[in-house]
């Protein structure tokens, strides 16, 4: 199975390594060459430098044959556009996208791809801790 990771920061690079460890063929894309360092010294997968909105880059990275695309650049709007392009234009079976803003994450939650909002997750986790058994 082939996974394409668009945005190779802390989240993207960790995911790339983990999926590779689990036996996936992983291709990573990031705007800067520096991102390659986060993948570790002997990254065995492909790595492409380019912007996630650039279809030439996505196609060179093999989006058309990807089973899974994970979009995790630092821009919510870039992520939302790339996710929709992956789903609608390239018909990637499974697309997951990180969206920091909970409001936009909620609005785009029902469009055939998975939306993960770290902000919402953090709020939920911290609220659960605060409210768990402690009195106000």
């Amino acid at each position, binding site marked *: 199975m082939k996974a394409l990771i668009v945005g190779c920061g802390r989240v993207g690079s960790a995911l790339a390594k983990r999926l590779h460890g689990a036996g996936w063929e992983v291709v990573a894309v990031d705007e800067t060459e520096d991102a390659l360092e986060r993948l570790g010294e002997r990254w065995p997968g492909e790595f492409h430098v380019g912007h996630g*909105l*650039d*279809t030439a880059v996505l196609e060179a990275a093999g989006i058309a044959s990807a089973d899974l695309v994970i979009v995790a650049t630092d*821009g*919510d*709007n*870039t992520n*939302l*556009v790339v996710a*929709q*392009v992956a789903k*609608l*234009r390239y018909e990637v079976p499974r697309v997951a996208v990180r969206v920091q*803003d909970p*409001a*936009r994450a909620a*609005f785009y939650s029902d469009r055939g791809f998975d939306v993960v909002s770290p902000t919402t997750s953090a709020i939920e986790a911290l609220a659960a801790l605060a409210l768990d058994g402690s009195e106000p």
Partner: protein
Amino acid sequence: MSFVIVVGGGQVGSSVTRKLLELGHEVVIVEQRRDRYLTLDEEFGHRAQAGDGTELSVLENAGIKRPADIVVAVTGDDEDNLIICQLARELYGVAKVVARVNDPRNQAHFDLLGIAPTVSATKMVMALVQHEMPEHELVQLVQLRRENLEIVEVEVGDSAAAAGKRVEQLRLPETSRLISVMRDGKAEIAVGSTELRAGDQVLAILQPGGEEELRTLLVGEKKKT
């Protein structure tokens, strides 16, 4: 009078706002960058609002829920313009959106997501440049995305099948019509009896895809290079 929200307060956004206000429309302009916002605030006062126009709360403060009649997304980032238009239309029911495309390579994304009409300075400059070039090619003047039609200009070539024929004698592609014929600086509406001559400037309306057939008929075979 319409209520318009302009997102993006650079050169384009502020000029559009100024013009719309002159025409008597109600306008709110949203700008994220502090320095730009302060300049806008000096000129437009309470009509200028600070904030990221892709945030729902910012759009709502600008009055998008009334709803706005038109949202104009003219920031320097295509992904932002796309999301602004999607939110405006799909979340807030704004009937009309206008989006700026900064990098023409992103046009396909706007088309894919049904965001139209779009405006691209690069594309307009290219159309004008082509217009000035003595190449015998179709020049796209207007693209009507919603209608899936385009208006093109073409010069009738010396060896074209159409030269010397009347419009009614032409075997035009099914998906096209001639609009007008200009000769010696005078334009006429093209009717069945209008005769075409080499050198005439013809305007045509057609569905995208029919360009090559129309070009061959009006211009002639492609020059060998």
